[in-house]
């Protein structure tokens, strides 16, 4: 016997969730999640990402709109009836049951007989590397182990969709990388549909097939990690996924898909992304600023901070204050010095003004 996947797509159609009378948690969103993909809901706290996740689970009911899992309309189904399982932020392991009982709990309601339940539960524990821990109480496990029990408990039900609600937030920094890789590996090996909520952009970039950035109860942008990082749709996304310097600029001419911009007299050419001639903004990652370039903007070094693996600089000029990172830690720039700041060939993107 092997744990299989019954991965199904999830679809949100004009879904709105209102708490009480007028607190809009999710505002008219449309979302298609492909089967077998790991999709992350990312956003600052209060953006509606957890509410969205809980609506997939059936722990919150949509106020308007329809939710589909596979071909079935589950909008009105309670959590019990949905073929979805969830790994909670607090793990929510039942403290009065052993690890084995915890993992078997859901199987008991799914119509498996005793021996099959036991086999599947054992299989699940083996999959997360906790073979032989079945007899312990959750309180006798470390945080990372508890986490894995929670994953096993959800996995053994072979759900159509597996949900993770900030699963790493209770782990220390070193374990996080490990667990995140484990989750991704299991997801890919079994081909599960996973919806994953986090507010940590690095975590999202690392595990996702696709990231849904949410803001103020709506969706700001959907895309692959590279899309979001290299081509953010707006200033919010640019700033939320990794840091970005936003520099006001002027598009002087557009030629096909190439635009030429002017920043305080410095000219640069890059993809136009459909923007017309006129005021615009340029988003540049700190690593994509070239310090000491032959061509660029003269700026003054305001602060220089040594953080071990690199140097961090704050640069000022009348038109902007920029944050830049340099790999060169051996010959740092002096505070007060003037440096020519150039733009890397790829990386900087144009955004609409405002």
């Amino acid at each position, binding site marked *: 016997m092997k744990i299989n996947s019954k991965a199904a797509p999830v679809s949100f159609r004009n879904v709105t969730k209102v708490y009480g009378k007028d607190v809009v948690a999710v505002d008219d969103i449309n979302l298609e999640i492909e089967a077998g993909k790991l999709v992350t809901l990312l956003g600052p706290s209060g953006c509606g990402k957890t509410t969205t996740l809980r609506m997939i689970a059936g722990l919150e009911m949509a106020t308007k709109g329809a939710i589909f899992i596979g071909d079935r309309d589950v909008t009105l189904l309670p959590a019990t009836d949905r073929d979805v399982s969830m790994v909670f932020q607090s793990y929510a392991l039942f403290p009065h049951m052993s690890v084995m009982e915890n993992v078997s709990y*859901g199987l008991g309601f799914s119509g498996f007989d005793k021996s099959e339940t036991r086999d599947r539960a054992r299989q699940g524990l083996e999959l997360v590397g906790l073979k032989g821990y079945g007899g312990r109480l959750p309180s006798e496990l470390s945080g990372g182990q508890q986490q894995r029990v929670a994953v096993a408990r959800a996995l053994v039900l072979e759900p159509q969709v597996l949900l993770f609600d900030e699963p790493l937030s209770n782990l220390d920094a070193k374990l996080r990388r490990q667990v995140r890789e484990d989750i991704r590996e299991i997801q890919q090996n079994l081909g599960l549909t996973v919806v994953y909520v986090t507010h940590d952009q690095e975590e999202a970039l690392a595990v996702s097939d696709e990231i849904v950035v949410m803001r103020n109860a709506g969706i700001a942008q959907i895309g692959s990690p590279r899309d979001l990082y290299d081509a953010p749709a707006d200033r919010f996304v640019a700033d939320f996924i990794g840091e970005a310097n936003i520099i006001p600029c002027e598009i002087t001419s557009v030629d096909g898909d190439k635009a030429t911009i002017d920043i305080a007299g410095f000219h640069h050419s890059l993809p136009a992304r459909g923007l017309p001639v006129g005021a615009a903004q340029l988003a540049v990652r700190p690593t994509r600023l070239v310090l000491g370039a032959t061509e660029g903007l003269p700026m003054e070094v305001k602060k220089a901070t040594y953080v071990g693996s690199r140097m961090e600089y704050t640069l000022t000029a009348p038109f902007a204050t920029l944050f830049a990172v340099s790999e060169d830690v051996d010959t740092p720039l002096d505070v007060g010095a003037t440096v020519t700041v150039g733009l890397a060939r790829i990386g900087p993107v144009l955004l609409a003004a405002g």
Partner: protein
Amino acid sequence: MRQLTSERTTHPVLIFWIIVGWAGFLLLPWYGIEDFFTFEWLIDGYPFDEDYAPAGFLIAQGEKLWLAPLIIPLVLSLFALGKPKTHPAFSRFLILAGALGFGWLIIQGFAIGIRGFNADWLRALFGDLDDRQFGMGYGALICAASFLFLFTQGIAARGAINGDVFVVSSIGGIVVIVTAFVFFPIAKMLTAAFITEDGGYSAEVFASKFFDDRLWGLGCLSGARCGVAWNSLFLAVLVGLITTVLGLIFALVVTRSGFRHKRALRALTVLPIITPPFVIGLALILLFGLSGSVTVFFADVIGIQPTRWLYGLPGVLIAQTLAFTPIAFLVLIGVVEGVSPSMEEAAQTLRASKWQVFKTISLPLMRPGLANAFLLGFIESMADFGNPLVLGGNFDVLSTEIFFAIVGAQYDQGKAAVLAMVLLCFTLGAFYAQRFWLGKKSYTTVSGKGDSGVHPQMPRALSIPVLALAMLWAVFTMVVYAMIFYGSVVELWGVNNTLTFKHYVTAFSFRIEEAGIRWSGAAWDSFWTTLKIAATAAPLTAIVGLITAYLLTRQTFAGKNAFEFGTMLSFAIPGTVIGVSYILAFNVPPIEITGTGIILVVSFIFRNMPVGVRAGIASMSQLDKSLDESSLTLGANSWQTFRRIILPLLRPAILAALVYSFVRAMTAISAVIFLVSAEYDMATSYIIGRVENNDYGLAIAYSTTLIFVMLAAVGAMQLIVGRTEIGRRMSQSRTNV
């Protein structure tokens, strides 16, 4: 793939309730029989005898034809079978069946009583009915339950609360029983205040009773006697103030002083739970009564003439203060501990002296708690019946006045009802103030984050008087309790002080005969009854309380605030009011249970339910909500979640609720005294009877025995609860009794 409950066409729960409904209608005796728990009826003419026949047989024999319409909803419910829940007809048939059945049961129950039609206009409309009916029995009750739960399943199928049958049914069940046993009797009592001697209704009667001088007279300002309402109010305010101050003193000693025997002080909080309320009064008589030891001592040594000063306001005040200070202590210790130490430490680092910290930070933060303790003391004093009865003398208060209006020679239901209304207004006012004025103002700062500070000690100028007062009071309490024990082993208090076990023998002697043990002592009857009733009421109280707590903490539904208010309301209804309203409401059909053990059990359930609810809420809010949610996402329904996750984790709270309601049922007197009958006499009312006959020895011996029995119960519980700790999480969720 999970099976969908919404697409199934067989519903075991539905089938169960339909069968139950038919069984109640066709198999079980419809009307109440003399003793609810005997099964004599099975061999005594069942199923054709009119008294024992099920409704189906009655109708078939051409009797009680007004029960015939009930067949319609019973048949209607069958149409829902074999349909999926999402089918519109499913919910329509169930709602219709439930509403029709339940509604008709109520209508016919109130319309037709032991003298035929209950109302004149019915008689005018249909002519005299030559038939009559008694209170509901097994059959009627079970049918009613069946209709109710068919109705709730119908509502659930329409999508209420996500279609959750367990939750909807629980809400329905609790609303119905609270309505039947809290609101209905109170409403009945209120109407009784308007009934004239010849059975009509008149506001004049009410007014004359309400504005009676005995109730509101202000004679005491000019040397005469005041009205009972003023007496009660004055006493309650005094008791509230004094118990709050004393409670605060104890709380400060325990949390903010170097005092070493803190555990002993904490043990004080158990006392009011295990002490029957009037016992303190008895002990005071032994100390300060006409032939009390202190009185006699002063008379002998200094030559002060013994007086009856104790009987009246002073005696009742002392007794109630002794009895209720531990309650204030229990409230305030939580409040005083709840003030975050880091706030006090912050104030200290901002250069406030200890005294300034106490005055500007600690005390203001405790203010809502102080008001809370005051209101509790106020309510308890208002509701107290035992102490004023024993010590009141000429100082009449509302609760005793109600009793004498019903039991005395005057037998005036209307007057009792008016008095009860006044009492109810006072306690409800205090309850309302507590909930809506204080409820939002809790400053206690228990956040999930660790607060590792230490409470600073009291300033010295405060700690010395506080410690002195606390010690004085503790010693006084100990003397009082020692007196109780000592009083039970002397021949005749104040007259013949030789030691004897005579009273225990009279009360609890038994002989071992061939036929077994013969319980020949005078107290055994009431003792066994008390144990039986208390043991029956305790689990029911715990169940109702915990389900209510579950609904309040874990579910959201329309009208939840009203639901919560209704369930907590009976906390504010004094026992005497419950007693009066129960005999007014339940000595006639449709619910006819006066004089049975059931009425005692029911009164205990609804008197003690708020305690179960509070205990349940307190420990459920410690359980992370994601535990329930994860159980739900793993495919369990809400009933399975309740049973397999919540109940096991709440075991300590369940035990606490069980023992607490058991013990409270044993010590209760105020409601009980109206509801006991010759057959079902309770320990407390038996003891009060002894006191009224001046048989103090037996009364005190019996009380002492009760205290020890309950001490054993509480002790056993503490032992068991101490052991049922599961993992780390549970160690924090232990409930104090």
